[in-house]
């Protein structure tokens, strides 16, 4: 735990990516494989399933410190990170302890993971004992592991770069080997760095190739005929794998979607083995996509009932082929992969379909087609360069997303609360309202869109214009108007306003507008599809 905590601190104490990569490289070279495996596991954003309810951690902290519960909550609201709050509060009751030399894998496998099956009393004794025995930095890292919120400002890309330096392998190879259900064992860590790949995991997806937003005019991309255009679908990006007689569905967030979309799995059962498709999971009826909020009803459901499958039918709309006949096809040109895709699934039908290229023969025609994207139930247009391979991650140049400009509404700030992590102790999470008669009804929460200087200024304004406090949330004088951009709008029974906004964010601080000039609820409802 000591070495891993030191790594955590080293990563936390530099803002330079080169420094972060060097710190990880040094760790991976020195640490025993059993520890390094767990470090890879945590640094790539994987987490232990919740082992201890946070209510228990809070209760034990109150017990150890003797402080009232409200004081802990006020403190948490100010710190913005529960693991850190508890670690800092607990450095009072205990004497400064010795450094802890127990290796990370022993901590995780022999101490932390067994907590799950323990009786509350035994769990309490164990955790209180560890808290007393660890210095504050290590207690903090332990709490991070216990709360399952281990984030240290390192992207997976940086972890891959460090591993590439240690192993001498290509970053693309390592990125692929780290996909899917990576097991934190010493053998897996050694296999990760092995020059020869061995023992492939059947369920392992490929790293996704991500499109970059097109900000310039598409004519800057050269000739229209060098590009294949498709709709940009508004669903969940996914990979459909058919290997060893089994079917695996992965989301871009690398969640295994097993059992969630039985109609897609059923349709995939007829596919040949050794096949990986890239595409979009969409709610779909007849030949038309349904709004994203229909798909949302399916996302959280592990075993959807027949009723919900009827109400919110889903399909996998394939647009690329990454593996066929068990062979990696990612280096083949785009047209060849599309050709193969057509050979395998034809035009598709039912729950497995194939995305069509858009005809529009020149940029002007394509631009006018793009203007109809919303009516087509899409977000805009994807442009993919002919002849390009399937790359890894957000590599710019070959895939562009040319989205429709978002829609906007002018709304008044009603509530503010502190952010988390980097933005804790600064008011960064806001609730906005529009006029319904002479009252303001909340319509959206937004977190981003202002620059640091604006956030600082707004933070000061909020502190001096607070009307009431509700725990961490403050109501503020309804004076500040903001232009909010959003992607979509759907009717909602859960929201007081009757509408739900998709991806709302602040596009401008409208200091030129008085609150009375903000939009009305009727203005917003007029934008419903």
């Amino acid at each position: 735990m000591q070495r891993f905590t030191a790594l955590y601190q080293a990563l936390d104490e530099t803002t330079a990516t080169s420094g972060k990569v060097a710190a990880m490289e040094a760790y991976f070279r020195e640490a025993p494989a059993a520890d390094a495996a767990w470090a890879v596991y945590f640094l790539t954003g994987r987490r232990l399933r919740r082992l201890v309810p946070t209510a228990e951690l809070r209760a034990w902290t109150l017990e150890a410190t003797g402080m009232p519960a409200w004081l802990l909550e006020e403190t948490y609201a100010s710190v913005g990170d529960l693991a850190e709050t508890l670690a800092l509060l607990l450095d009072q009751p205990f004497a400064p302890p010795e450094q802890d030399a127990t290796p990370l894998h022993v901590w995780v496998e022999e101490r932390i993971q067994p907590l799950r099956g323990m009786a509350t009393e035994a769990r309490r004794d164990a955790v209180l004992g560890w808290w007393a025995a660890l210095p504050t930095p290590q207690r903090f890292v332990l709490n991070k592991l216990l709360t399952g919120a281990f984030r240290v400002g390192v992207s997976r890309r940086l972890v891959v770069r460090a591993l590439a330096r240690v192993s001498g392998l290509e970053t693309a190879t390592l990125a692929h080997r780290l996909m899917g259900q990576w097991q934190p064992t010493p053998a897996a860590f050694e296999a990760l760095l092995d020059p020869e790949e061995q023992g492939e995991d059947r369920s392992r997806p490929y790293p996704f190739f991500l499109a970059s937003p097109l900000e310039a005019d598409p004519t800057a991309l050269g000739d229209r005929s060098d590009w294949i255009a498709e709709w940009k679908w508004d669903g969940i990006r996914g990979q459909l794998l058919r290997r060893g007689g089994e079917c695996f569905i992965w989301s871009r967030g690398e969640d295994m979607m097993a059992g969630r979309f039985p109609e897609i799995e059923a349709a995939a059962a007829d596919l040949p083995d050794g096949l990986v498709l890239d595409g979009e999971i969409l709610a779909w009826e007849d030949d038309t996509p349904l709004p994203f909020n229909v798909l949302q009803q399916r996302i959280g459901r592990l075993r959807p009932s027949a009723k919900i499958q009827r109400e919110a039918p889903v399909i996998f709309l394939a647009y690329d082929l990454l593996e066929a006949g068990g062979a990696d096809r990612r280096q083949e040109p785009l047209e060849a992969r599309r050709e193969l895709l057509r050979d395998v699934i034809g035009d598709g039908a039912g729950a497995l379909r194939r995305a069509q290229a858009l005809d529009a023969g020149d940029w002007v025609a394509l631009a006018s087609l793009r203007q109809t994207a919303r009516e087509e139930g899409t977000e805009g247009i994807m442009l993919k360069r002919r002849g390009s391979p399937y790359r890894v991650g957000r590599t710019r140049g070959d895939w562009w997303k040319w989205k429709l400009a978002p829609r906007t509404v002018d709304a008044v700030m009603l509530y503010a609360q502190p952010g988390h992590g980097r933005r804790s102790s600064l008011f960064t999470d806001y609730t906005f309202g529009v006029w319904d008669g002479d009252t303001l009804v909340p319509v959206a929460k937004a977190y981003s869109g202002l620059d640091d200087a604006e956030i600082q200024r707004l933070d000061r304004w909020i502190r001096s214009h607070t009307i009431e406090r509700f725990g961490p949330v403050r109501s503020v004088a309804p004076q500040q108007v903001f232009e909010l951009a959003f992607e979509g709008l759907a009717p909602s029974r859960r929201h007081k306003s009757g509408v739900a906004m998709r991806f709302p964010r602040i596009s401008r601080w409208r200091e030129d507008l008085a609150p009375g000039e903000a939009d009305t609820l009727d203005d917003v409802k007029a934008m419903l599809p």
Partner: protein
Amino acid sequence: MVADLIRPTERGLYCPPGDFYIDPWRPVERAVITHAHGDHARWGHRIYYASHASRPLLERRLSRDALILGCDFDKPFRLGDAWISFHPAGHILGSSQVRVEYRGCVWVASGDYKRDVDPTCEPFQVVPCDTFITEATFALPIYRWEPVARVAGEIHQWWRACARAGQTAVLFCYALGKAQRILAELLAYTRDTAYLHGAMVPLVDAYRDAGVAMLPTASVSAMPRNHDFAGALVLAPPSAAGSSWMRRFRPESTGFASGWMRIRGNRRRRGYDRGFVVSDHADWPALLQTVRDTGARRVLATHGRTDVLVRYLNEVEGVDAQPLVTDYGGEADD
């Protein structure tokens, strides 16, 4: 029971029997000043009463013709119908608590204070009173300070590590109080020269004139344009972060010395590489201990987390506490 000896008004905290204000924020006839930080010592009053040690700092801050009367610590004098006296607050050089007595009733306004050892100013003195006006800048139980001598050791290690890596160590800290304290604490580790941002030079000079021992210093602006700062420690006010002035120090590592650095999010949000927890304010245990030490039956809490301190004093410590609205720096201070 007499009426409140000190009460909030539009111009500041006012003492009716003495007809004076404490750290007023609008121009007044008679201003009693606890210390020289900008939010407590403002322009435009007719007469300033302050400790002797505060005088040179106030003279730098206020206009030349301001009338500043230096007062001894612990020597009561009459102002109007009240008796007042200054007592060390341990916050920065010259910082004072103000004790006010009228008809047997004693109030103490602490200004900003701390209880920790600080080689640059006189230590806090406990002044028994009936009503104690306390600050609450760091009134949350996560705020607990380690001995600054140890933190200075961390700063020195960081400076050495930067030197080995060929970097300039740029440490941001407030120009009055914090900078001098760090320069004094670093004497335990080195005699190397530290470089100063221009805003700090006159204040460091003032501390030297007052007899405070610190590292040797040089002004950054006095160095040739192409001077290589690699391996050097540079002290600068936080406002210099991100300015073009910073370019000459590349490659640099940045640190910030403040009580707020106790929380990771505060450091990461500002993009500093390192945070060093050094505060010139009382931490949570010191706030509570000070209230107990004064024996005050009533406590008024000014800037910072007054809400938390007031509730805690009422509910847990059984002290009658209320918030007192002021215009002091509050949440951003330190």
